[in-house]
């Protein structure tokens, strides 16, 4: 595994290069600059020039200088018509060095499409023969969570990855759709259903998402689907869930509520209530009577609780 230190590229020297002879680094062209800071930088360059040289390398194959660091300065210099810019020329980096450098220089922005980044991460994993999230995160400067999200996207077939790379923004699927769908289609029990075919389910979910009936309103709706699956599992209602999920998948107008198995939901709610009551039990067991002896509100509240509990137990015919 290559370390981040080994990625450093040696300096050949500082010199001036014609602004027009430089090209941005294609390994990360998705650099969106805020207009205001760019205006400030432009004004500064007009006043004092470029004080910190750009870092560039010479691409031997294409015979041109490529910017490794300093694209903002270069964009401003081009905009204000500077003929030359100072550069620090370094050795041409290897593919891995180049990608890692780009990751480290340019922080991932929330509004960037994640799929191109995921493909770069895939290339890194392949080149370095390393899939460890923590090490990839350290190397690239991306959060571990982002690496995990990238891996989820890479788990989809090329056909679906392509949907996230569509040139038409209206046709382009958001990475979040596939990330939220991931836990549903990777649920062990769901995958074991005899009707389950991953590609078919994904295609049907895409159809439902875009359909006017809006049975899937937002990508976070998949969390609800997953919740219904979990509840059914806990209540041992998987057979019932299987047929309901199959219908939900195949019929465009069937809403998510169709997945709700009443008994499963009740069971899940009961489990949650038991957990809360246990917490109250623990609190009461540890209650220091002498310490709270004068706290009348506390005792009144406990009496109300006893009364309410007795009423509920009586109504349920559970009183002994």
């Amino acid at each position, binding site marked *: 595994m290559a370390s981040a230190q080994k990625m450093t590229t040696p300096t050949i020297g500082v010199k001036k290069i014609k602004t027009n002879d430089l090209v941005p680094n*294609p390994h*990360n062209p998705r650099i969106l600059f805020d207009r205001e800071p760019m205006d400030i930088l432009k004004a500064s360059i007009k006043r004092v020039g470029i004080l910190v040289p750009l870092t560039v390398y010479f691409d031997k194959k294409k015979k041109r200088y490529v910017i490794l660091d300093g694209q903002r300065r270069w964009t401003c210099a081009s905009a204000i018509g500077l003929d030359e810019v100072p550069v620090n020329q370094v050795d041409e980096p290897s593919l891995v060095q180049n990608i890692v450098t780009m990751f480290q220089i340019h922080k991932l922005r929330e509004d960037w499409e994640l799929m*191109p980044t995921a*493909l770069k991460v895939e*290339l890194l994993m392949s080149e370095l023969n390393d899939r460890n999230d923590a090490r990839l995160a350290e190397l690239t400067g991306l959060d571990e969570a982002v690496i995990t999200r990238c891996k989820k996207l890479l788990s989809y077939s*090329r056909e679906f990855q392509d949907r996230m790379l569509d*040139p*038409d923004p209206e046709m382009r699927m958001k990475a979040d759709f596939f990330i939220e769908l991931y836990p549903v289609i990777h649920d062990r029990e769901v995958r074991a259903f005899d009707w389950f075919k991953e590609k078919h389910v994904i295609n049907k979910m895409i159809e439902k998402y875009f359909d006017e009936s809006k049975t899937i309103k937002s990508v976070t709706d998949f969390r609800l689907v997953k919740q219904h699956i979990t509840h059914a599992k806990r209540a041992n209602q998987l057979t019932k869930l299987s047929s309901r999920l199959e219908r939900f998948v195949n019929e465009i107008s069937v809403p998510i509520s169709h997945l709700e198995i009443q008994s499963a939901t009740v069971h899940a709610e009961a489990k949650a209530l038991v957990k809360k009551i246990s917490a109250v039990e623990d609190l009461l067991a540890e209650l220091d009577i002498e310490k709270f002896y004068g706290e009348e509100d506390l005792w009144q509240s406990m009496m109300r609780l006893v009364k309410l509990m007795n009423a509920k137990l009586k109504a349920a015919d559970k009183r002994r």
Partner: protein
Amino acid sequence: MQKPLGREAPINNARYNRWLAAFSGYVSEVTRSKVELWLEQFGEPERPIAARVLDSVLFIGHQQIKTKYRELLLGLSGWNQDAIKRKGRWFFVPFSSSVGESGDSMVHVFRMATGMTTRHYNNLFVHRSDLVRLRPGPEDTVVLIDDFSGTGRQASTAWDDTFAELLAEGPQVYLMVVAATEVAVNAVQNNTEMQLICGTILDHRHDFFSDKCKFFANSEKTKIEHYCKLASPRNPRGSDASGLLVVLAHRCPNNSLPILHTNSQNWSALFPRQFD
């Protein structure tokens, strides 16, 4: 844009037959009753102008699309059907997805047109998401396949957003389309490292509202624009105000006039872009 019949030409059987023959093969069948209903949406005085608009539609049929793809491929330097004689590696990639289709419908047409349908050629046809892994370099060629480019804006944005990064190692990149406007060819040339190659180039004369379009008088253009506004108040001259009268057999580009392709509360299209 085709040269329309004269202003006095009657809307008779012969003219209907001419339209039906010209538009045969559109994905949503064009019938005589559909043409009649379409014409009836215009006021009586405007119908002769609307008829001349239909005369002017440049319809590119399935066979023409295939021929254009075949010719475009043969014109590419370094290409040879025989892998040994080919220069570098070649990859054919769908540029965009198609509505309600698997995303590679134009690539399928391209394969049919060029006779590369057997498994033997499968490794030439790859997904967009394969490109990073395959790392095409300066000796290699990537051909992105699409049907139409109206302004080149989408292609330019797509290059910046995605393709420049997917094709970072500098292969020769072509964007191959059946038809494109001159504006699109220039935009792609100036803003990207792709070269747009197309079967039919549409210059300013193909813009219905351009002064260079001499088949219609300004007063006629104004009358037609009124109906275009009914069909699409937001884009009365078509997407990016392209003002085209072009229809491809599998879909009408949205750069064409909305009276041709937009279905709305106030308008029924003759060449709808979405169909049941």
